[in-house]
């Protein structure tokens, strides 16, 4: 199993292929499944992602608690006039749409977690659409994302309770950044720089769910995570490099997570969860 971003990049470079190609081949060897089986499974996961994104932009979906709802739909309607441009706005809209479906007890794919489930689909669906990519090409890019997520899980954490929101939305954003670079035809090395830049952008981010629920601030952070992934990919493909290599950023993220107080790690005892409004909402539920 590939355990570092550097190893991932080098093995793709050596073969002169995309990261996803290496990942799928190795995973087939590791699990005993065929590449076709793996692709088919990823394809079925992609279909769930797409359906959730479509549902959440087509209608205002309310959460079970009633605290949030409709963010995906609202942003989708405003995407045409968005200052950030329609790609970022649509990616953000889809990210929130998936997150809205999640908070309504709808069907989603944890990527890597349910709290961060909108970032990857929001990014790859929107970039894929803009670049006219086929669904199969987008599914391919998910293997790259998954490999990045696994390296983060192996060397740091993808659990908010252990590492804070940087471990969930940060990992998702890094995964999406690598997938977007690959979709857009960037190099494996550029994908690694995009991973580093996306993760650096949220270093130290607290996990502070209001009333303990995966809604506030999670839904909006999914939008930000998608926007950051796309910008990190653009930066990397513009030739900007992360001074600190991705693997070192991942280790730093782990250390920052370790240093963070437990109050800031999914306990609803710090950050936005203990603001006057946060506490009020908590009492109402």
């Amino acid at each position, binding site marked *: *199993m590939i355990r570092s971003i550097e190893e991932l990049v080098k093995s793709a470079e050596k073969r002169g292929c995309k990261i996803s190609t290496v*990942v799928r081949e190795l*995973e087939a060897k590791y*699990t005993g499944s065929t590449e076709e089986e*793996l692709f088919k*499974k*990823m394809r*079925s*996961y992609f279909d*769930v992602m797409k359906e959730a994104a479509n549902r959440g932009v087509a209608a205002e979906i309310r*959460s*079970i*608690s009633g605290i949030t709802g409709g963010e995906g739909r609202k942003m989708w309607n405003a995407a045409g006039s968005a200052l950030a441009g329609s790609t970022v706005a649509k990616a953000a809209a889809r990210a929130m749409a998936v997150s809205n*479906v*999640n*908070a*309504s*007890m*709808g*069907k*989603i*794919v*944890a*990527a*890597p*977690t*349910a*709290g961060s*489930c909108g970032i*990857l689909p929001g990014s790859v669906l929107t970039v894929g659409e803009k670049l006219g990519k086929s669904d199969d090409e987008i599914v391919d890019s*998910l*293997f790259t*994302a*998954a*490999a990045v*997520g*696994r390296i983060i*899980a*192996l060397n740091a954490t*993808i*659990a908010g*309770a*252990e590492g804070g929101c940087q471990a969930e939305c940060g990992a998702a954003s890094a*995964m999406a950044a690598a997938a977007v670079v690959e979709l857009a035809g960037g190099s494996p090395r550029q994908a690694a720089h995009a991973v580093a830049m996306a993760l650096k952008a949220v270093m130290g981010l607290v996990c502070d*769910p209001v*009333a*303990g*629920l*995966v*809604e506030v601030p999670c839904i909006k952070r999914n939008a930000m995570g998608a926007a950051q992934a796309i910008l990190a990919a653009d930066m990397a493909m513009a030739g900007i490099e992360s001074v600190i290599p991705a693997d070192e950023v991942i280790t730093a993220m782990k250390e920052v997570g370790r240093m963070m107080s437990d109050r800031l790690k999914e*306990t*609803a005892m710090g950050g936005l969860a203990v603001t006057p409004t946060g506490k009020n909402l908590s009492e109402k*539920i």
Partner: protein
Amino acid sequence: MNLFDIIGPVMIGPSSSHTAGAVRLGNMARNILGEEPRRARIVVYNSFAKTGRGHGTDKALIAGLLGFAPDDERIRTSFEEAGKRGLVYELVAGEDDDSLHPNTALFVLEGNTRKTEVAGCSIGGGRVKITAIDGFEVDFSGEYPTIITVHRDRPGIVARVTTHLAEKGFNIAQMRVSRKTKGEQALMIIETDEPLPEGIKEVLESIEDIYRILIILPA
């Protein structure tokens, strides 16, 4: 770690630990009972007790007991489904307990012929761990094909089971034996790499002094 542990599981939101993990805990408790549960008392602890309602943890635990998968749309309406299936349940919040994992549940289950008590916790990303069965301390995830035996604590039983597996070409990934008192009842958990062969349950059940065999297959 499988790639689909990172992208995946496909699940009903909103929380992989509080919803998907809770469904899987219910699934495991149901499998350990080994028949349709008729009565269930579920005690939830710590974070499960505090933020469970908003995350649908209560609905998810019941859905799991009914055998629904973590991506089953009926999780949202599991209380009604329980009514239809004749499952009488009670959900109780336990006292805060720092010695327990933050997301812990204890199931006290009754089926038509059996009773069991299963404790487990949701450890993140939808993954779970079973920590006790009928008062025996255990530690397994249900991610591998798992064999659980309840047997008399005497020499030779463990060897007979493992020999049988070895003869069939099965590699044991992890194994643990526990007992409450020497010479009385013991419990053995074996996790294997490969899917288990047909008929393994019957073969192992025929071994003298094995009272009960449970086979738990990964979801």
